[in-house]
């Protein structure tokens, strides 16, 4: 992102590895050296979850990506993220639980 002072597209990564994976995937798919998003290493799932409602209040935010380690309980983690988001914004897409389970 050119304007890292005030990024509009942000990728929240749970840890250092996650951030580098995202950057690596981008560079392997694109010739553009500039990332189209601003990666942020939140240094842990807890700080990612606590910063999520604050990120969502950023008036300049256009897109927010979240990259977390699913560990052994992907559904549990997904639901935690969903509930964190839905607590902070009133309108949220109701995702079909069954589709998630198939994933």
């Amino acid at each position, binding site marked *: 992102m050119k304007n890292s002072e005030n990024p509009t597209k942000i990728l929240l990564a749970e840890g250092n590895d996650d951030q580098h994976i995202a950057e690596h995937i981008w560079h392997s798919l694109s010739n553009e050296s500039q990332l189209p998003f601003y990666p942020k290493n939140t240094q842990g799932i807890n700080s990612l979850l606590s910063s999520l409602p604050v990120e969502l*209040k950023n008036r300049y935010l256009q897109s927010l990506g979240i990259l977390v380690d699913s560990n052994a309980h992907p559904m549990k983690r997904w639901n935690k993220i969903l509930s964190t988001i839905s607590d902070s914004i009133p309108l949220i897409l109701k995702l079909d639980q069954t589709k998630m389970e198939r994933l």
Partner: protein
Amino acid sequence: MTNGELHLSNLLITNFRGIRNLSIERLGRVNLITGLNGVGKTTLLEAIRVYAARGSFEILNDILYSRDEVVESIDEDKDIVLSPDYSSLFYEGLIHEKHHVSIGPISDKDSLKIETIDFEDLPQSKQELFPKLTSGNHQALKVTFHDAEVSVLPWLSEISDLSVSEFISPVPRVLRRLSFGKENMADPIRCESLGPGLITNDTLAEFWDKIVLTPQENLSLKVINLTGQNIERIAVVGQKFSRFLRSNGRRFSVKIEGKEEPVPLKTLGDAIIRLYAVGLAMAVSKNGFLLIDEIENGIHFTIQQDLCRIILEAAKKLNVQVFATTHSIDCIKAFSRAASDGEESDVALIRLEDLNGDLRAVEYSEEELRIATNQHIEVR
């Protein structure tokens, strides 16, 4: 209000100047107000000022005069006089019953209400208090606080319009001053304001008069010495400005440690004056509100955190509720870090945003502000 309780723990403003409706769910002891230029930050401060003064005409007039919101009228000597344009107090200048101004806590809607009434609708006994108006059904401005009528003032802008007619009804001087009421008047809450510009000696002297030789005097010294000046004492010299005396008005002199002679405060730079003003204003706002427009002005970021810490401590100790507008991320971070260092500081940040022509408040708690500071999240 018991000591230590916030004067306003939340706020609802309706139809006041540029604000149609604004609700702030939670206010802190120190509230930082951000938002784009012209969004309504200063109007929010004005609303608090009006609420604190229980809608006194002195404050309403002061707000309107300071923004040049005046209308021209003609007095009985055919001199042009300026009167406050009260329609500017109402959202989009709309003045009918549905659009009364309301300012107060969310749960106590209409605690302060400003509305227009037809003069003829006043009880006869009150109409008689005014000299007979020249002609027509003139409007009056009525302010109530908790259903206790505070005061009524004739609405002068209705009486004459210079551009329309040569036959202007003169506004008698007595009318320009008249208001009545103040029955069951609730005590106003002390409220001091600091504008964004350089503070005049007169303003500083007014503050100084209120705190000199009180325990709060040390607070202003503490703040002024944040720049490392080692100022030992500050005194006001000179006489009040008078056209009959050869006087520059009252001015400030400071005694710096290790120096024999006092030096004028103004020689120490604008930042020092601003800091001194913040310290004095904080001290005089005891048990009241302190409103600071663009708090960071002229103050280097390296001392902002210490300044914020002193403000947080003093706000709690002196029971002051502070509202400060800012554009500076350094200032926001400084408050956040100072709050993390202290105990129970209770800082909130409110960003005002225009949403399809309406104003809305995006609110950050102290914890959210801490997260935003640590994770470099934009809050302005």
